[in-house]
């Protein structure tokens, strides 16, 4: 596992470096030679039209999709396949909310990866769970079944699970979708908290209006990387236009390809 070690090269510490990343579905590339570099304590919006490869990028970062070319390094170490340092939060509609678990049960799942299959829950595990629940302000709700939460609370419960896992990189698929304004503000505050703890947050996002208030960096994506950098520099009219008006390569003309999820 890519834990921090004292012998690290200081330039690569706390950095997520993606180089020349290409990911394909059925031999048709969905992401072409993506490269960027991010640091811990940043919150990054992943922007682009439908089919731009936002979910594909998130999934390839956690090893859900095989990569055709390129490398991903975190803390100066190659990331191959799954790692506890990364937490992937799926879109809310993909979750079975009737699952027999409470908020606390959900957060405890974050510890299982650290504990393995057998080891018992110890005091430190309970403490980590308590802390994660408190950080996401779910103390009054921790006994609730997960469907008895609002959308924003559900999102926070998943963030708490990732916190209990002690993940450093949070990959969120459309976290703000379907949230009303107060929940959005609340989630924004929670993401600030996480950023303050030195977490790297990468979230796919589609509402261009809210980008500058929610995030400090953007990755503009449309099959290939259009631009990447601080919101103030990169999130410009010209770049946005370029992102939403280039036709990405999706295989031979007239043969649309389908993604199987």
């Amino acid at each position, binding site marked *: 596992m890519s834990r921090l070690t004292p012998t690290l090269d200081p330039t690569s510490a706390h950095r997520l470096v993606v180089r020349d990343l290409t990911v394909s579905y059925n031999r048709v590339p969905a992401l072409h030679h993506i490269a960027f570099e991010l640091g811990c304590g940043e919150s990054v919006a992943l922007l682009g039209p439908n089919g731009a490869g936002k979910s594909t990028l998130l999934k390839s970062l956690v090893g*859900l999709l095989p990569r055709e070319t390129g490398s991903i390094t975190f803390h100066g170490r190659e990331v191959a396949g*799954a790692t506890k340092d990364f937490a992937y939060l*799926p879109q809310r509609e993909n979750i079975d909310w009737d699952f*027999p*678990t409470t908020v606390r049960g959900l957060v405890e799942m974050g510890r*299982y990866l650290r504990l393995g*299959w057998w080891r018992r829950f110890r005091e430190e595990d309970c403490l980590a769970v308590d802390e994660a629940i408190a950080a996401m302000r779910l103390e*009054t*709700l921790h006994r609730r079944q997960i469907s008895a939460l609002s959308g924003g609370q559900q999102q926070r419960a998943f963030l708490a699970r990732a916190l209990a896992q002690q993940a450093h990189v949070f990959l969120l698929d459309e976290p703000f979708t379907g949230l*009303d304004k107060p929940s959005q503000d609340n989630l924004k505050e929670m993401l600030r908290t996480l950023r303050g703890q030195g977490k790297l947050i990468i979230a796919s996002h589609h509402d261009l209006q809210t980008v500058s208030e929610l995030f400090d960096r953007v990755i503009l994506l449309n099959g290939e990387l259009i631009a990447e950098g601080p919101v103030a520099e990169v999130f410009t009219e010209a770049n946005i236009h370029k992102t939403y008006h280039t036709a990405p390569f999706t295989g031979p003309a007239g043969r649309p390809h389908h993604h199987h999820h």
Partner: protein
Amino acid sequence: MDWLTEPFHHEFMRRVVVGGALLGFTNGFLGAFVVLRRLALMADSLSHSLLPGLAVALLLFGLAPVGLFFGALVAALIVAMGAQIIARSSRLKEDTALGALYTVAFSLGVVLISFVKVRVSLLHYLFGNILGLSDSDLWIIWGISLIVVPLLVGLQRPLLLTLFDPTVAASQGIRVNWLNFILMFSLVLTMIASLQAIGVIMLLGLLILPAATVYLLCDSYSTMLWGGGVIGMLGSLAGLLLSYWLNLPSGASIVLVLGIVFFAAFFFSPRYGLIRRLRPARHLHAESLARWPHGSPSEETGSEKAEG
């Protein structure tokens, strides 16, 4: 009170009680995974497809338990894998592929059994007969229960993560396909163990009714597993005694008892029962009054509820 202890005086009845309790527990425990993974249709198909395997084994090896065991195993694997192949190599979806395959397999089984020379009744395999449980049947039940339950207990954490969200589980390095395979394998083994006692048609009831009942009562994964096991065990014992006293078919009595418990939960569960659902919800006006400064001071949960 003689009538209560009377059944236990018989040697065969003690065997039946032990076998029934074990089967009830194992099926109820496994049932939680079947319910949460939405495998009920798959389980039903597999149980029906055991029949042609039994028929072929009877034709080739007679009543030898080893032959019956492997015949059933192979038949279930062929149907499960065949359905996958049909679904992937055509535009048909898996439910149709399974339905098509298992009804054909079942019919084949019915036809083949009519050619069997050994004197067996088709009804025996369709509806089971726990009162006719032999020593070797009981050994198979013990063996399979002692494989399946410890296996599922040992794997319960990765299984939990996989059942809850296979994508996230895979992203955490859990070998989701392997776990699914182990689950299917446990399912087939448990069915083979249950075959003698309740038959291929009502197997599914013993498997999913206990878990479905607990699912309507609680919000805890581990309660669902162990609770399913306990309800399955108690329901099986109650059903067996009923069938003894009233001279009813044993498999049907067990499933009926479990069915009564299930419907009780469906109607009367304090959290998820139908009656709870139909009861009018609190009028929103009451909540808004509670938040009004002149009313009672609003508590923290009140404002949390209004969030989404």
